[in-house]
């Protein structure tokens, strides 16, 4: 099945098996391994990417469903070597421990601020309900998202 997907601004054309999950297309076909597979059951959010600007879980989508869409992964956030403000906020507030959930957290957090630019702490916690941090580092993750929101 032919697919055309714009990933991080670059158009890709390929031929995939219909059962190919979007996350595997990104990681294995395009080599974009920043997007992680955690639970593989749409619970943990490690595979969160943006599909046409909205946060979605790429382990619960077929690559063929993304045909014609625009995808942004963690690799597409930095511009000219300058990190996205959310990445900076995670770095400055130590919003990570082992780092495994971080790409998904950052993508979900940017999606959250796109929909709610000035969230309360509770709204950040609810907004990130689809992302699990097994280091339980939520305190600094929430702090990072609030910092990014107030820096806007």
């Amino acid at each position, binding site marked *: 099945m032919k697919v055309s997907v714009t990933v991080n601004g670059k158009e890709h054309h390929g031929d995939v098996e219909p059962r190919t999950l979007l996350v595997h297309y990104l990681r294995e076909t395009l080599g974009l391994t920043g997007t992680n597979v955690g639970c593989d059951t749409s619970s943990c959010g490690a595979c969160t990417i943006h599909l046409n600007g909205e946060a979605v879980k790429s382990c619960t989508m077929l690559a*063929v469903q993304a045909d014609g869409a625009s995808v942004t992964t963690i690799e597409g956030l930095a511009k000219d070597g300058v990190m996205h403000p959310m990445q900076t906020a995670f770095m400055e507030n130590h919003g990570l421990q082992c780092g495994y959930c971080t790409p998904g957290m950052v993508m*979900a957090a940017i999606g959250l601020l796109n929909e709610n630019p000035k969230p309360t702490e509770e709204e950040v916690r609810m907004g990130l*309900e*689809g992302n699990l941090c097994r280091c339980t580092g939520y305190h600094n993750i929430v702090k990072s998202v609030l910092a990014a929101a107030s820096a806007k």
Partner: protein
Amino acid sequence: MIPAAFDYKRASSAAEAISLVSEFGSDAKFLAGGHSLLPLMKLRLAQPSMLIDIGRVKDLSYIKDVGDHIAIGALTRHMDVETSKVLLEHAPLLSHAAGHVGDAQVRHRGTIGGSIAHADPASDLPATTLALGATYVVQGPKGKREIAAANFYKGFLESDLAADEMLIEIRVPKMQGAGWSFQKFNRRAQDWAIVGVAAWRRKGEAGVALVNMGSTPILATSVSNAIAKGASISDAAAMASNEADPQNDLNASTVYRKHLASVLVRRALEAASK
């Protein structure tokens, strides 16, 4: 986990989707947002040989005020139900419940029609539309028919939908100022409800449906009848499980679920009566 191999066709209209499903038979499944079906396929709990992708049938994504009810296209995503001004005004219970489905990422993909057609008793929207007295419109090779939500759910993940029929619209009566409440008891924010309650109340009238209290979403008619006869909220809530047959599983025993249902129905009716 990668699903077992399947063939894939994309439909651009409901009519095309129905003609494809008629051609490929009962081993073909519709793929909308995929947030119920793909997890099942990854676990090999479902293994269709053909997926008919209806995710691009854009004219089935709408929310319209049509007088006494709101018409919702089956492919309307949870996020759009949650934030719809029309629904927030006329069926706020449904908007609110949609905001409790999964998490934000799931709500960006999952659709109201997919959730209802999947007929999972643990899902929020089947029970919520049941409480609201919704009607579902389905389309098949012979045309359209309407099914009351109360007659739609036939068993665990089983509905009145025939293999060659597709759910196309959900019609929700306007709530006309009724008080309402959605109670979802779970251990983690994004989980399915261990027990959930969708309820509305107007003077002497109430609608209550239960999530995860049996093999289908359950309409708690004993509770509504008791309220109609003037019973107190706590007396009515004590009958919460009269129509239910909850399972015993890792999350909760049958006895605990029944207790929880009466507590949550009481809370829901109290909140809906304010």
